[in-house]
């Protein structure tokens, strides 16, 4: 998507527009080497992707049940299902809350780290930790912390707020909020390191010039540095959008199973749940198609919003 990247040496590498006649002649011997990777990719990634659209048009009430052609029936069933609309609402809330908080906080934190304040190395090390922890491990930490006798309630009790304690994951009003907190908790740190790395390659003179003109750090951060890395912010937002949008299935599965009721069912969890728990495969893959299309539209929208405009 972007054409430059930094190598571990820290230098910018640009794909060289190599166009020498010598190379042109030699290519026939080499291009075939790309075939295995390509075949692998088509079989394991593109094939299943296409299959989603096919299965979405089938009536398939379980692995061993007879399959019939359903046409648009699945779409109608899905749109008539209140659970689907709950999932749409939950996903919308999740994205609308988690993404802005994550990106804005991470940008500011990244800016802070990039200024190399005292202790920034330690901070960088710590901020990265959530990026290393696997989803099940993260979920287990939160499961233990949010359980009725866990960390959060213990902390509330010790500061005299025993009355607000709750079974956080088992209560319809807080289950979705817990999932959002989990996303934001780890997302900010990891994203901040990405921003810090990118901000580190912005020439220092830019910031210094702004400060000489009397701009404070707040102004420098938003009016000077932000426009410079706007494109990159867009890429990172796309990334977090995809992770939150598709990745929520794992958190939901591990922590709340979509409940209580459908209060924490997200769209991507619905795909999983209908396929592997309810065995309604046509329904599941119809939601999969919707997920895919919404994801694509979301990506393009974010890309357009953050396009460099200077």
């Amino acid at each position, binding site marked *: 998507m972007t054409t430059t990247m930094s190598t*571990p040496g820290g230098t910018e590498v640009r794909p*060289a527009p190599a166009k020498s006649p010598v*190379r042109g002649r030699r290519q026939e011997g080499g*291009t075939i080497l790309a075939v295995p990777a390509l075949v692998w990719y088509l079989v394991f990634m593109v094939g299943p992707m296409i299959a989603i659209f096919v299965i979405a048009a089938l009536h398939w009430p379980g692995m061993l049940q007879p399959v019939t052609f359903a046409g648009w029936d699945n779409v109608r069933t899905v749109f008539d299902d209140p659970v689907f609309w709950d999932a749409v609402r939950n996903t919308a809330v999740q994205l609308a809350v988690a993404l802005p908080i994550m990106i804005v906080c991470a940008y500011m934190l990244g800016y802070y780290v990039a200024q190399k*304040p005292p202790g920034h190395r330690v901070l960088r090390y*710590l901020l990265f930790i959530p990026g290393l922890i696997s989803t099940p*491990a993260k979920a287990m930490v939160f*499961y233990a912390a949010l359980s009725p006798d866990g*960390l959060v309630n213990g902390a509330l009790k010790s500061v005299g707020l025993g009355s607000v304690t709750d079974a956080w994951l088992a209560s319809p009003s807080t289950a979705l909020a817990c999932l959002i907190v989990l996303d934001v908790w780890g997302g900010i740190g990891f994203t901040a390191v990405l921003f810090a790395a990118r901000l580190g390659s912005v020439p220092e003179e830019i910031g210094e010039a702004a400060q000489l003109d009397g701009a404070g750090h707040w102004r420098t951060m938003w009016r000077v540095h932000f426009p410079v890395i706007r494109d990159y912010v867009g890429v990172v937002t796309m990334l977090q959008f995809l992770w939150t949008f598709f990745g929520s*299935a794992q958190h939901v599965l591990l922590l709340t199973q979509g409940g209580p009721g459908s209060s924490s069912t997200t769209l991507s969890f619905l795909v999983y749940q209908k396929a592997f728990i309810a065995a309604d495969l046509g329904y599941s893959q119809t939601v999969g198609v919707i997920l895919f299309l919404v994801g694509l539209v979301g990506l393009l929208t974010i890309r357009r919003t953050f396009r460099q405009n200077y």
Partner: protein
Amino acid sequence: MKHGKSWLPAHILAWAYAALLLVPLYYLLASAFKTNEEIFASPFSLPTSLSFGNFGTAFESADLGLAVVNSALVTAFSLALTLALAIPAAFAVARSTGRLGAFVEKVFSLGFLIPTFAALFPTFLLAAATGLFHTRMFMVLFLPATAMPLSVVILVQFMRTIPKEMEEAARIDGASTFGVLRHVYTPMCMPGIATVLLLNFLTFWNEYLYSLVIIGPDPSQRTVQVALPTLKSLTGTDYGVLTAGTVLTLVPVWAVYTVLQKRMQQALVSGAVKM
């Protein structure tokens, strides 16, 4: 001067967030050495004794030892296969100037747009159709495919920096195309290979949903990420054992991160940029 008084709120906020990251991790580590009663009574206190009883229980009840071995096997073989596929492909794309090479590159760059998760069920069908359902084998074949776009694109960037005089010199010495790949390109893009390895090590080791659905619950096959959540139901709500198990699964990643911190951050950052 640069970080004067006006920075105080920023310092406080940044370190407050760092504390917010650390508290659950401290809780995780401390609880691993405690009993349920101790955790409930005083969630923040240091453990009174450093007994590894919880670790032992976690190890036995969820067969975590075997699961670690399975995870290591899947990760190692997937990494090897990823390199075996991605290095030649990147080599082909990086050297080619024709339309075909550009097309292949396009296919892989578009791969970033494919949300792999959506294809979970069709992949499950593919596993069933190939007769590799409920085996680690399928994951070893499948994971490299998911890693292909990123790996190829990163390696191509590195290979494009290799001067073509290197190849010409090797050609004069009578090297074949394969020889050029082996003796010129591969050694010269070792940093790129390291990046790809680190990045995919993390992804493969931490992979959960596909492993859960495809490898399934069989203790002799399942990976550590699948085994871990079973502690939740196996032990009832013994948080000591649950957290001990979680700590165990984090150790390999943590060790690699601490040793290769700089390199790993760069790998992950470049991975995200390529998205």
